[in-house]
């Protein structure tokens, strides 16, 4: 195994020596440009409402969520198991501000002519996105506050509980009145007839043509990716990593604990809210049953598979698990067991498949598919040798 890896590294080094020096400089930029072009023209390579395009849209939205959770879990090292709460808040933003749910009110800002005649609050999707970002950031801070004095696994337990509280609140919200006979949520009945996004010139999005939906979530992904990269290479991003590495040392060096941690929670939550708002509109219904604990774990699995702390890893992990969950298992391989004479469908064992994949990644490549640059350096053989050397160093005064 390690011999094979060493051989591969050797070959790679040999190939790199053959390439001209400008190659490595332009390689990353070229690759990014290529991926961008492929990303933009992708919908033209498939039918306008094919299962593949649907799977892609959901996978990209998952990737946005994974990027958000990566800020909290990966960069700042705060194990958040209640991330589904921000999916819920984002989705309910669409339910509240983009449907006839609050039937006693009439507010219309920048919506399609059809929607502007309806009762309820109807805001343009961009405004809903902004509302989702603000509401989720505030919710992230509120959920983060009680975890500030905790470390490690205890943070996981508190956030898990909060995720569950939000889920139960969503179910029981149909009994919480907000005046005029209106309620906070519609529980398991769901808020339906959600406005499809509408922009001047594009018309209302329809589920018969998925391409505009794709470009919308692709645009959201680009924004989130850009913000992530900027934050990583900033004073704030460094402070998150420092807190993750050694909280005591970080605060002693002047990193404000409360502010920096809450900023991580708020940022991660805001990204989750954007994806949640998109999901709310795309699924055309906001149903309390969507916000289950398993979803938090699913997003966490994306981050872990991709490489904890790595932006490109979270992107890759989100896309990969998103594709497997929404295209490969239900559309492509679903009837595979039957062709072997087995009496079940692959979708019914999807969680088993994800569990297997997680174990596989942890065994074969524990640092994830695209490890964080810092961790990659950490995991090289040189460090192991150094550590062994340090271990033999005399400890303490003679």
């Amino acid at each position, binding site marked *: 195994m390690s011999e094979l890896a060493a051989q591969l590294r050797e070959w790679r080094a040999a190939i790199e020596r053959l390439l001209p020096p400008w190659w490595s400089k332009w390689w990353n930029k070229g690759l990014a440009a290529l991926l961008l072009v492929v990303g933009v023209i992708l919908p033209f390579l498939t039918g306008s409402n094919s299962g593949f395009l649907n799977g892609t849209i959901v996978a990209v939205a998952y990737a946005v969520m994974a990027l958000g959770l990566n800020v909290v879990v990966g960069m700042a090292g705060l194990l958040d198991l209640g991330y589904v709460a921000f999916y819920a808040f984002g989705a309910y933003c669409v339910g509240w501000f983009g449907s006839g749910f609050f039937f006693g009110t009439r507010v219309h800002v920048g919506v399609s002519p059809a929607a502007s005649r309806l009762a309820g609050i109807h805001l343009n999707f961009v405004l809903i996105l902004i509302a989702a970002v603000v509401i989720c950031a505030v919710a992230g801070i509120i959920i983060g506050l009680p975890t500030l004095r905790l470390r490690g696994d205890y943070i996981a337990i508190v956030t898990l509980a909060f995720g569950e509280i939000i889920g139960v609140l969503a179910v029981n919200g149909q009994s919480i009145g907000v005046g005029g006979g209106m309620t906070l949520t519609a529980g398991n009945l769901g808020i339906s007839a959600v406005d499809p996004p509408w922009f001047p010139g594009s018309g209302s999005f329809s589920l018969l043509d998925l391409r505009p939906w794709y470009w919308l979530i692709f645009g959201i992904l680009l924004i989130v990716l850009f913000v992530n990269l900027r934050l990583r290479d900033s004073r704030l991003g460094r402070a998150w990593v420092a807190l993750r590495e050694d909280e005591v040392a970080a605060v*002693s060096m002047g990193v404000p604990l409360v502010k920096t941690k809450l900023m991580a929670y708020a940022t991660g939550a805001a990204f989750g809210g954007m994806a949640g708002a998109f999901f709310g509109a795309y699924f055309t219904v906001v149903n309390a049953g969507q916000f289950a604990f398993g979803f938090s774990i699913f997003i966490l699995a994306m981050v872990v598979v991709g490489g904890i702390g790595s932006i490109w890893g979270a992107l890759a992990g989100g896309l990969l698990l998103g594709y497997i969950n929404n295209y490969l298992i239900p559309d492509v391989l679903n009837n595979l067991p039957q062709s072997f004479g087995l009496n079940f469908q692959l979708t019914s064992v999807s969680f088993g498949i994800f569990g297997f994949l997680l174990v596989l990644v942890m065994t074969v490549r524990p640092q994830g598919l695209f490890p964080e640059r810092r961790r990659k350096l950490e995991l090289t053989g040189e460090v192991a040798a150094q550590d062994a050397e340090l271990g033999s160093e005399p400890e303490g005064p003679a």
Partner: protein
Amino acid sequence: MSPDATASASAAAPAASPAPPILLAEGITKQFGGLTAVNDVTFDVPARSIVSLIGPNGAGKTTFFNMLTGLIRPTGGRITFDGRNITRARPDVITARGVARTFQNIRLFGAMTATENVMIGYHGRMRAGVFGAIARPPWVRREERQAVGRARELLAYVGLRPADFERLATQLSYGDQRRVEIARALASEPRLLLLDEPTAGMNPQESAALSAFMRRIRDDLNLTILLIEHDMRVVMGVSERVTVLNYGSRLAEGTPAEVRANPAVIEAYLGREGNGTP
């Protein structure tokens, strides 16, 4: 006895000419449940001096440091730094006021490079927030460039090879990690530097070099240094004043020569002389 000690004993003039104390701790007490780790300790550190805090293991030295830097809150007493009460201030606020420290067991950020480690020390002197980081206006770019430049300057100043600047902290040798930790502390532009056993694990040559380095940073950067140290050669050579803690209480205080001659200190370190011992 050694010429070094007598030289620094005569340099301990601040005891006579009253320099205003930069740090003043009055009646500091810390109880962990029933255990009194630090008991009613009062002492002060004159500005621009080098003061040592010594004592047997478990005497409460590091607990005392942790209270000075805000990591733990004293049960009683009052800490004044530069005329301002910092007894219950947050660690980052205390750092911003001008107190920086290193740790007994090196606590660098393992997944960050040497430069990034030092830039964390500079954190409190930078202003970019979340929106500044995203939009990255010119002043943020300038601030980042300055921070990188200063971090490299400091790394060079503490004697790290430029080839090691961008290596991960965990990849550096033990001595270099100590250097980076001091550079990180200096990056916060402190006026009081707390060093917790800086020579732990060093050989005599390295310890001597570090003693010289402590004097140099004191003079170059106009610093006050308070150190916890077990290596008596370093303590006697570098400090102008020594405070001895034992079982959380102040046992003795004075110039290195005075402390060395103090029978209570000898007893704390070596035990009481038995009757039969010559």
